[in-house]
């Protein structure tokens, strides 16, 4: 990218402003380092979090489309997201109205305060921008403290990679985060559970279900010698990090493991200060293992 600045509209979503502040703080810091100007959409609202699958339900597509109108109003045709759920919901609603003009028309007729959505915006996840607009080679040039010796296990979950045509990589064997982490100098370990659901919103009404998922996923990661699980979804993060408490109660032999966002590892490798890492938002503290590897 050199010294130019890449300007792109940015949709943060609710959770990176509260329980996942560490995700946003680290994202904005590394974006600045790489010359990406992420311009937050004014007056953004909830994306709806899940894409409605019933074909007769148009109402629930209004929230994501309204946010895309905000991007259009800014004069941008590209918007970047960091949360996997926001990414999936915004992208699916966008693809739906691009392909189904009748539904687009219904939504436009319903909303009378906004300008009509022209369906010309494209939704991206930050990982795509890093890979395609910046390039992992360029990312590697910004590494001041390579994550040498740190065994990281990328975890993609569901909504970043599925369904086909929406996901940012191969549905069965995604490698985009692997490649990014390699560029940061980390030892990347592949895990077959990398695309398996964490239990998602069942965390609200069935903690044990999620704790069992966490047990399976983290135990597999551990058995492969991983030090840190790396991901991009604040709901996966909550389930796989905070639900380790319930997991330990169900399985006393369970070994806990820290979970981090890929942007935190980028910030660490770029040599940015702890103020950009947000360690206070973790349940299992990643600092001991990072200190052991001389990264802090």
């Amino acid at each position: 990218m050199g010294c130019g600045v890449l300007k792109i509209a940015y949709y943060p979503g609710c959770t990176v402003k509260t329980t996942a502040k560490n995700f946003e703080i680290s994202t904005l810091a590394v974006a600045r380092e790489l010359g990406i100007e992420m311009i937050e959409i004014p007056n953004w609202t909830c994306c709806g979090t899940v894409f409605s699958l019933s074909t007769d339900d148009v109402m629930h597509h209004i929230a994501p489309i309204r946010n895309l109108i905000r991007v259009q109003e800014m004069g941008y045709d590209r918007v970047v997201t960091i949360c996997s759920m926001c990414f999936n919901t915004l992208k699916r609603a966008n693809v739906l109205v691009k392909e189904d003009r009748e539904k687009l028309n219904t939504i436009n007729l319903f909303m009378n305060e906004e300008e009509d959505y022209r369906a010309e915006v494209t939704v991206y996840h930050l990982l795509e921008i890093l890979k395609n607009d910046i390039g992992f080679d360029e990312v590697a040039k910004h590494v001041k403290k390579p994550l040498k010796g740190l065994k990281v296990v990328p975890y993609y979950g569901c909504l970043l990679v599925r369904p086909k045509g929406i996901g940012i990589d191969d549905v069965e064997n995604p490698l985009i985060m692997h490649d990014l982490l390699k560029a940061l100098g980390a030892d990347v370990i592949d895990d077959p559970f990398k695309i398996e659901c964490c239990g998602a919103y069942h965390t609200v009404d069935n903690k044990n279900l999620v704790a069992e998922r966490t047990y399976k996923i983290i135990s597999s990661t551990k058995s492969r010698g991983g030090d840190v699980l790396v991901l991009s979804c604040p709901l996966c993060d909550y389930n796989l990090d905070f639900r380790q408490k319930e997991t330990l109660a169900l399985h006393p032999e369970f070994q806990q493991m820290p979970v981090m966002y890929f942007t935190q590892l980028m910030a660490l490798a770029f040599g940015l200060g702890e103020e950009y890492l947000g360690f206070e938002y973790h349940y299992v503290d990643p600092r001991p293992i990072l200190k052991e590897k001389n990264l802090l």
Partner: protein
Amino acid sequence: MLTMVYREPVSNEIIKRAEEISGENFMACYQCGRCSAGCPMVPEMDLLPNQVLRYAQLGLADEILKSKTIWVCSSCFMCTVRCPKGIDIARVMEVLWQIVLRKNNACIHASKIDQKDLEDMPQIAIVSALRKCSS
């Protein structure tokens, strides 16, 4: 035991409605079981995903709508991407619980969520749980 085998095609209004709202062809399923083999939620289910499709083909709507399975599915789309017949099974599950929800039968009530949990949990967990499990 005497088993009667009928030749009349199965017809059930609820199943027909589910096919219509989902836009999926339930008869396309040939019971390979790949959806159930990959589903991470199977330990929590009373009917396997392929059984839900089979029951639907047989018009057994009540059994499906009473099952835990349709609620346990968290729309991870593993089955959807693996179905060799191209059936969006996650969509089928969602439509089936939509049919229950549209009769005002919620399985999660916002007022019953623990206050401490509400403070600690990410909003995306709460919003998606209520979107998926309440009307």
